[in-house]
């Protein structure tokens, strides 16, 4: 579309040329090749907060106080000084401009956590249709919690965990959802997924997926809890029919009153637990059974098949637990199942893991794969974008580079695939990133693989801490003339004197402005140097 790399020529050409159908956003994004954050202000004096991220619409910068009890929200602004000279470029920035406050205005500070609670500073979800933010505070988890009231052993227990729904415009807390004596994997949004206005919270301890809806009025409404029950009225139905059921083991009857631990919603297990499996476990086992049953038409062989493939592994299937969940659309969940040891030890390679697609409306399991399944990998390779399920409202999320929408990312994936020694190991490694965590990638166009080439080990769209380097990170144009466009240099201007301590770095890129913050930490988790990169 553009014949020249000069921005003025491009603007003139844009006036007369229409981009090819369906590529208007891609053509508009090419202007980011011209507007780059090439200027760095080193070692900016900034408030001692831990900065979490820019919201995906670019309106707010979220940060938490150092003691993890307050939320401070800034509005990204821009420098406002003017230069009356003829040749402004050669002038240095005035010292007033080289401050954090020139770029960010503090909007408000809200205290979220009370005395013994702390804000989980790696957790933040943003709902951009209403500008609502979701934060989590919790007490300190206790590692050796007894497994009472239907909890499964092996997980720590958090005495009180609260999810706060805030209106970011003014910092008003709209609603809260509290969990007691539970455990949800909070860091990096791993145990919570936001899709549109639906929130899925995975309670690992009680093996329940809580689905909540965020209303426009700002209320968090419970929709359903999937785990021991599938339909919303299962509990009512089972309890009302409890007295009609004949208990096979009469000696267990005296234990029933002790099982009723009042622990908030859906935490009291039904007293029928001993007699049959219910809820999602039942759906899963019956799906596996039916699939093996339907494969083989001959009756004797069918039974052989069932014995070998189902009954032999029955207890392993029963012992599977829900590990992680994501939405595929409003009605379908992708659930990762694993063994307790696999989830707790975090060393996923040795332990089996399975993926199930579950339809919440019909309460049926649609598909079930092992984590080395080639068919699931083919779907992942071709339709990766649909696994990053995004709500209808946030269009910019459709343009984050992935190997399904970008030829360069696909080539990278293919090269890893060719270098892999074992195909099933490669598939397991790739599928290990499923289910995806919500809002973990930056929508900044500087991470668009078709615009820039950069070292993915040092910087990428995923917001994780990376090993830091003293050399600047180069962003090179993909298209000819493939020139170096800008560099992100960490640390102080002169380079750090101490080259031996291991440093880690993290980056915050504004979603659409040529503005980025880089942080270089020493191992004491205090930001030693903060740099601001912007287009001067």
């Amino acid at each position, binding site marked *: 579309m553009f014949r020249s790399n000069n921005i003025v020529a491009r603007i003139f050409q844009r006036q007369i040329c229409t981009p090819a159908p369906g590529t208007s956003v891609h053509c508009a994004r090419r202007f980011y090749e011209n507007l780059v954050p090439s200027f760095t202000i080193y070692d900016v004096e900034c408030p001692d907060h831990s900065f979490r991220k820019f919201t995906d619409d670019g309106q707010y910068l979220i940060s938490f106080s150092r003691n993890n009890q307050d939320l401070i929200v800034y509005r990204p602004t821009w420098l406002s000084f003017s230069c009356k000279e003829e040749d402004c470029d050669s002038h240095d920035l005035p010292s007033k401009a080289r401050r954090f406050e020139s770029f960010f205005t503090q909007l408000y500070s809200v205290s979220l956590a009370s005395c013994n609670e702390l804000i989980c500073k790696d957790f933040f979800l943003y709902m951009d249709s209403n500008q609502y933010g979701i934060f989590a505070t919790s007490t300190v988890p206790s590692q050796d919690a007894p497994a009472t009231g239907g909890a499964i052993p092996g997980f720590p227990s958090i005495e009180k965990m609260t999810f706060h729904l805030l209106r970011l415009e003014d910092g008003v807390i709209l609603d809260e959802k509290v969990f007691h004596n539970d455990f949800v994997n909070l860091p990096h949004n791993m145990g919570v997924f936001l899709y549109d206005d639906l929130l899925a919270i995975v309670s690992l301890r009680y093996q329940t997926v809580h689905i909540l809806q965020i209303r426009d009025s700002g209320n968090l409404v419970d929709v359903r809890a999937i785990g021991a029950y599938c339909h919303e009225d299962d509990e009512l139905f089972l309890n009302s029919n409890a007295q009609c059921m004949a208990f096979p083991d009469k000696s267990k009857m005296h234990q029933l009153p002790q099982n009723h631990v009042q622990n908030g919603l859906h935490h009291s297990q039904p007293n029928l637990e001993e007699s049959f499996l219910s809820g999602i476990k039942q759906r899963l086992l019956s799906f596996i059974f039916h699939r093996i049953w339907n494969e083989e038409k001959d009756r004797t062989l069918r039974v052989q098949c069932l014995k070998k493939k189902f009954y032999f592994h029955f207890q392993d299937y029963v012992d599977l637990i829900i590990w992680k969940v994501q939405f*595929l659309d409003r009605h379908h969940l992708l659930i990762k199942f694993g063994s307790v040891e696999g989830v707790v030890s975090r060393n996923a390679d040795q332990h089996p893991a399975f993926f199930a697609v579950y339809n919440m409306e019909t309460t049926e399991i649609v598909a079930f794969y092992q984590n080395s399944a080639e068919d699931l990998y083919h779907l992942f390779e071709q339709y990766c974008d649909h696994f990053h399920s995004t709500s209808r409202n946030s269009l910019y999320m459709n343009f984050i580079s992935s190997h399904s929408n970008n030829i360069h990312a696909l080539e990278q994936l293919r090269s890893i695939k060719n270098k892999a020694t074992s195909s099933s190991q490669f598939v397991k490694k790739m599928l290990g990133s499923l289910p995806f965590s919500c809002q973990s990638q930056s929508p900044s166009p500087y991470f668009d693989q078709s615009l820039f080439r950069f070292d993915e080990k040092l910087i990428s769209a995923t917001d994780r801490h990376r090993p830091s380097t003293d050399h600047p990170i180069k962003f090179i144009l993909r298209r000819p003339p493939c020139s170096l466009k800008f560099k992100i240099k960490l640390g102080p201007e002169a380079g750090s004197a101490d080259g031996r301590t291991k440093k880690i770095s993290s980056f915050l890129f504004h979603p659409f402005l040529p503005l980025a913050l880089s942080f270089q930490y020493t191992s004491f988790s205090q930001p030693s140097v903060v740099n601001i990169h912007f287009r001067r």
Partner: protein
Amino acid sequence: MGSLFGDWPSFDPHNFSQLQPSDPSSPSRMTPATYHPTHSRTLPPPDQVITTDAKNILLRHIYQRAEEKDLRPKRAAPEHLVPEHGCKQPRASSSSC
């Protein structure tokens, strides 16, 4: 006839002199060519309704594969029990199902 465009500037006032303006009282003799099908094999069924599938493509593929597995043709018994050639391996453990 007078110029069709009145007093508008033009290179050659005799351009368009042969063009007759369409007169609503006398219908045009030119009828567009119409094509009629010679057979009715491709007619849609009378009760056909075309709608958009609300499911995204990933879910459509997952459902399709699930349906294909259900409709898989039955295997003849001898093939399953005894591999005829050395290269045919019996199915691996249930976890690959």
